[in-house]
């Protein structure tokens, strides 16, 4: 009896700790729409404070819509006849790949219904687009077969950024209901997502890292589906955004381009949080620094900059929290930042 009471007491105390530590977080006000999404060459500074939504964060979007921050998404179907090898390097021949299912999903994603859903995604919740459709994207009007027992399960390997944006969560159920498939989404960092496909654990991949995609194709792991010209089907894009302290000590908001902004940050040694996990975001980020700094995705390359550059090796949400706590700059995908902001950003 005594022990039970003690446990209950401990739990009550714990709950009190949680309760007391609450910050007076104002519920996020309706985010006012920023400028209409335009594919301009010059970067646009984020709107002035008047239209900035009230939130409890220390950081805000400072720069967006720079061409250098475009993030292209591609679909690649896995080639069932790819040179799969096992852990010892021996060739494996009978790897099960659901090619019919993969094609069905690709055809649908590149069709009209999906295009509409993608274009409208996020508009209601955040008042702005989170994803845009490429004008030169491959389109499909192919007939999509219903799922059968054998082809019913489709394994899609994608990145955490895509998954976290919530796009797939709103898109895939429509596809699944209409055609009877079950799409199993496994999300991981870009490197791991692609590696999973190379190990025969995916039927198709949705990633956003051109060089790694090209490697994948060069290795013979992708196939050209019927009705298309290439293995890489690049169909949509979005932007990374440069997020930083609201008072913007480096003056990034006024920089002409994101590369200029990055130079300002580096010159002034303002705190910067890097994903440091070889993800698509990380790869993009390192490409934006002035060449002279020699920053690459390797931890070694930044060991002399630890006073301002943090190589964190963590996911987007965690890095944003770090940036918020440390009043630092960070390159983020827009969707995750908007979710982060909508949650008040605060832990408590």
């Amino acid at each position, binding site marked *: 009896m005594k*022990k*039970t009471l003690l*446990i209950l007491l401990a*739990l009550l105390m714990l*709950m009190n700790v*949680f*309760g007391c*530590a*609450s910050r*007076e*977080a104002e519920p996020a006000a309706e985010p006012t729409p920023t400028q209409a999404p335009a594919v301009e060459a010059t970067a646009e500074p984020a709107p002035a404070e008047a239209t900035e939504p009230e939130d409890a964060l220390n950081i805000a979007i400072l720069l967006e819509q720079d061409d250098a921050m475009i993030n292209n998404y591609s679909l690649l179907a896995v080639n069932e006849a790819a040179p*799969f*090898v*096992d*852990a010892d390097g021996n060739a*494996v021949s009978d*790897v*099960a*790949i659901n090619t019919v299912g993969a094609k069905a999903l690709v055809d649908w994603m590149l069709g009209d219904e999906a295009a509409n859903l993608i274009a409208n995604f996020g508009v209601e919740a955040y008042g702005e687009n989170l994803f845009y459709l490429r004008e030169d994207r491959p389109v499909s009007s192919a007939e999509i077969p219903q799922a059968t027992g054998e082809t019913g399960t489709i*394994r899609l390997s994608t990145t*955490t950024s895509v998954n*976290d944006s919530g796009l797939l*969560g709103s898109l895939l159920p429509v596809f699944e209901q209409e055609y009877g498939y079950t799409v*199993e*989404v*496994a*999300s991981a960092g870009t490197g791991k997502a692609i590696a999973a496909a190379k*190990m*025969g*654990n995916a039927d198709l991949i949705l990633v956003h890292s051109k060089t790694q995609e090209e490697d994948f194709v060069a290795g013979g792991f992708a196939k050209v589906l019927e009705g298309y010209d290439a293995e890489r089907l690049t169909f949509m894009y979005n932007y990374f955004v440069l997020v930083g302290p609201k008072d913007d000590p480096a003056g990034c908001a006024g920089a002409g381009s994101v590369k200029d902004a990055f130079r300002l940050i580096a010159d002034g040694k303002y705190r910067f949080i890097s994903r440091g996990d070889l993800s698509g975001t990380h790869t993009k980020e390192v490409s934006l620094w002035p060449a002279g700094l020699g920053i690459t995705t390797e931890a070694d390359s930044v060991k002399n900059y630890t006073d301002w550059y943090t190589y964190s090796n*963590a*996911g*987007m*949400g*965690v890095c*944003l*929290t770090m940036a918020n706590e440390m009043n630092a700059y960070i390159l983020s995908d827009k969707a*995750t930042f908007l*979710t*982060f902001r909508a*949650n008040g*950003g605060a*832990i*408590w």
Partner: protein
Amino acid sequence: MRTALQLAIDLLLSGSAELKDIVSVTLRMTLTSSVAALLLGAPLGVLYASARFPGRKALIVINRTLMGLPPVVCGLICYMLFSGVGPLRHLKLLFTVEGMIVAQVILLTPIVTGSMETYLSGVVGPIRETARGLRLSRGRTFLLTLNESKYQVVSTYLFAFGRAMAEVGAVAMVGGAIAYKTNVMTTAIMMYTNRGDFTLGLALGILLLAISLVVNVLAHLLQRSPA
């Protein structure tokens, strides 16, 4: 003004389908793997403690080593075995709850065995000596040994249950944390906090603790011998 805790409780009470699914997958995985580990490990532990056979000491050392197997290593090995190019690919265990259960059983069984063996090796000597003194049969002695270890079995099981529910590394790798399929509470917490959605992570954490509490209280009540 709602505190994080209140938001979390709101979420739990809202009965979201996703949350329900996460909890049910978790329970299914935890119960199956802990029971399987118990059924495999307990008799083995009793055997190691009671019988004398060549190689017994070596097996005990191996078991002790396996008890310290890092979960991520187990997850990685299972991932590679069940992978599309792996030798066990035909079992189709990758990204399934069954695969997660296999990984869990590999991790838990040595712990169950070790726990039973350690406890029993302390008492099996006196139990036997007294039984021999009374000229009891082998079978009788064995039943007596089982009876003496019943509380240890319960507490070992609960420990295995707790470990199974708290496991994240191995099950994340083998299961892939696929929504509505292999997402359990721990992997969900990891996923949501990585996204910055701490509220949901917290809600699940509270739920996990609550279930643990209930299980432990139950165990405590069961352990108290009737007067």
